[in-house]
């Protein structure tokens, strides 16, 4: 429609023989020709600006939505998978340590863990493209989770019949969990973290935004120059349609600028107050569960301090750093900050309980060590730590959702309004200049 408007004044002048450059240079020599060129330039710039405004807001909107609906939830699910599997492994080992028929609450906890892992796996699969690192990890995880569940089921069936081979089944399951399931979950977690980073890049759509800013400036400049030319070459000081077009362009620039600036501010908030603490806390919870698993498996292996205890010490060091980092970015007085501080204190208590466990075991009191490790006091201390981390995590997840929701606000309307306003500018430019052109007829 707009190209038709553009073309209509041209055909009487056009000659099939001449080249484009030749025709343009001929147009420049006459006053109506110059007006036609100005009109063509304004319309072209206007259309381009409308197109880019639409694309920029569409890209920023899609990026923001993808971040909020896919990448970040994928990260959260990857953490759920990892921590559920780690907790299942620990719980199974603790149930084994308890001796006799496994305690009901541990069985229930193990089943909950597996349920959580399977549910998270299903929805993570939905959020992942068919090929790539995450998809491979999810496929491997799905296959191994059912193998894992089968091994633990065999262990329990044998244990119920009093057959010691149950212990061997459990250790096969644990090996599968530690050597395949948890590493794959970690791969998924890292892939999800990369996707979140990519998601922020896509949501910011920096190249499109820069292009839009340039085009808006160029369109404004072109409108101002065209009006100066008209006021010099005619006796009229103001060309009303072009003045209105300039105003509309300014409105478009201010509107787009406002929405995009606010989107970026909320994205930054979502990143620093949401995604980053969520990733940090997720890693913290994983490290805490790893400690507990090391402790239970060391006791189950009954061979004194081994590589697992060395892993415990290493994990404790890392966990302390993670908690310190978390305390730094989540200040005192905030809900998340308080949870982190409480987790830090709880973790200190847990590590001293663990040291007591090791001391008992190393001193030959295996039964005492087991009783202390899986006893209600130590369990409560440890659960307190993971619950605190979980609370802080939930708090930061909420912050992320709020910020990402705010970031997406206004992008949808702008995707429609931007191109419409640009078309309006084109129409006004045509109206304004055609009136002058008709004076030459």
């Amino acid at each position, binding site marked *: 429609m707009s190209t038709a408007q553009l073309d209509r004044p041209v055909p009487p002048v056009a000659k099939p023989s001449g080249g484009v450059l030749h025709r343009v240079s001929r147009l420049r020599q006459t006053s109506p020709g110059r007006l036609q060129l100005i009109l063509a330039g304004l319309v072209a710039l206007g259309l381009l600006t409308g197109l880019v405004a639409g694309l920029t807001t569409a890209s920023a909107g899609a990026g923001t939505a993808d971040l909020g609906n896919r990448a970040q939830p994928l990260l959260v699910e990857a953490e759920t998978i990892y921590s559920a599997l780690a907790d299942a492994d620990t719980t199974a080992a603790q149930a084994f340590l308890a*001796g*006799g028929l496994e305690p009901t609450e541990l069985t229930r906890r193990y089943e909950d863990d597996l349920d959580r892992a399977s549910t998270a796996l299903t929805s993570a699969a939905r959020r992942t493209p068919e090929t790539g690192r995450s998809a491979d990890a999810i496929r491997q995880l799905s296959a191994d989770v059912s193998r894992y569940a089968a091994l633990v089921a065999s262990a329990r069936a044998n244990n119920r019949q*009093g*057959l*010691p*081979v149950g*212990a*061997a089944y459990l250790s096969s399951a644990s090996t599968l969990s530690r050597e395949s399931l948890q590493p794959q979950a970690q791969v998924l977690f890292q892939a999800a973290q990369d996707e979140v980073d990519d998601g922020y890049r896509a949501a910011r759509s920096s190249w499109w935004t820069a292009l839009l800013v340039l085009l808006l400036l160029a369109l404004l400049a072109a409108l101002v120059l065209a009006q100066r030319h008209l006021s010099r070459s005619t006796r009229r000081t103001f060309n009303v349609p072009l003045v209105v077009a300039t105003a509309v362009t300014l409105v478009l620039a201010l509107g787009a600028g406002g929405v995009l600036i606010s989107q970026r501010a909320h994205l930054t908030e979502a990143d620093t107050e949401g995604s980053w603490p969520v990733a940090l806390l997720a890693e913290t919870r994983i490290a805490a569960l790893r400690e507990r698993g090391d402790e239970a498996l060391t006791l189950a292996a009954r061979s*004194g301090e081994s590589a697992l205890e060395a892993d415990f010490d290493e994990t404790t060091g890392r966990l302390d750093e993670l908690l310190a980092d978390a305390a730094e970015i989540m200040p005192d007085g905030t809900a998340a900050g308080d949870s982190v501080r409480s987790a830090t204190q709880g973790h200190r208590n847990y590590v001293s309980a663990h040291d007591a466990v090791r001391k008992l075991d190393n001193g*030959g009191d295996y039964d005492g060590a087991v009783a202390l490790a899986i006893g209600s006091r130590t369990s409560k201390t440890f659960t307190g730590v993971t619950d605190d981390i979980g609370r802080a995590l939930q708090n930061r997840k909420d912050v992320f959702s709020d910020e990402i929701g705010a970031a997406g606000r206004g992008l949808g309307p702008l995707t429609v309004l931007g191109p419409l306003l640009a078309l309006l500018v084109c129409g006004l430019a045509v109206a304004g200049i055609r009136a002058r052109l008709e004076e030459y007829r």
Partner: protein
Amino acid sequence: MRARVALAAVAALTVLAAAGCSGDSSPLPGRPSESAAPAPTNPAAPVDTSCNPRASLKPAGALPAPGRMPADSYMAVIQKRGRLVLGTSQDTLLFSSRNPFSGKVEGFDVDMGRQIAAAIFGDPDKIQIKVIAYDKRVSSAVDGSVDLVADTMTANCARWKDVNFSSIYYEAGQKVLVSSASAAKSIDDLGGKKVCAAKGSTSFDNIGKVAAKPIPVARAGFGDCLVAFQQNEVDAISTDDTILIGLAAQDPYAKVVGPRYTEEPYGMAMSNAHPEFTRFVNAVLAKNRANGTWKSTYERWLGDFGAAPQPPVAQYRD
């Protein structure tokens, strides 16, 4: 299990030599040159016949009273510590396995250790069970992380180079466990089939020496072999008949077949830095053979498989 006459010892030695001796594959402290040597699991490795693996150190006189170990002896060190550290496994049913009901590790091997603890302390409960991997049995005794290893461990010449063995407390021999539907009658019918044994055990090495060429598969322990067998990852398990009986008891679809194709005399291993401890352990074993304790221990754990045989006759090298 078998009454042994002096003449038979020579024959037994030859069988054992044919079966071959091999130390554990774990690296030993202070012997770096050993680890650079070719893998001991190589079936072509020269057979070590340099000793009589059944002959241990002779007990020195009467046993000291419990709780009154001679000063400067290793028994006094153990007494001062307040517990004997026994290295064993927790998945060898009947010999040393974890009772799933009580969580305690128990069996024939564990009772052997408890009898030593009783001789030192007058209390068989003053014992700490430390579970060690099969391929760590020699190194754990050498580095002193356990006082005594009682873990269905075959006394052989290669191991004698690193540790002292007690006199023989049990005579076993290698057989094979197959699916109850299998037509195999012995290990010779399992050419090209996967046969599992614990990593670092003599059983594993022996599978590689069978002429029919079964494929040896290593797992961390025999319980893990049973898992592999039940998951159809291996076709058979081959190790000492005693261990196989314990495995077959846990799986009604498994049976133990064939004649013993090796001889596996079990001894308790300990560091050779304290010969007085070996002599002490041998004195306890000699006493328990004589007073019927050995027989009642056998009946307690292995009585379901027939009456107790005569205990193995102790042989000494000095």
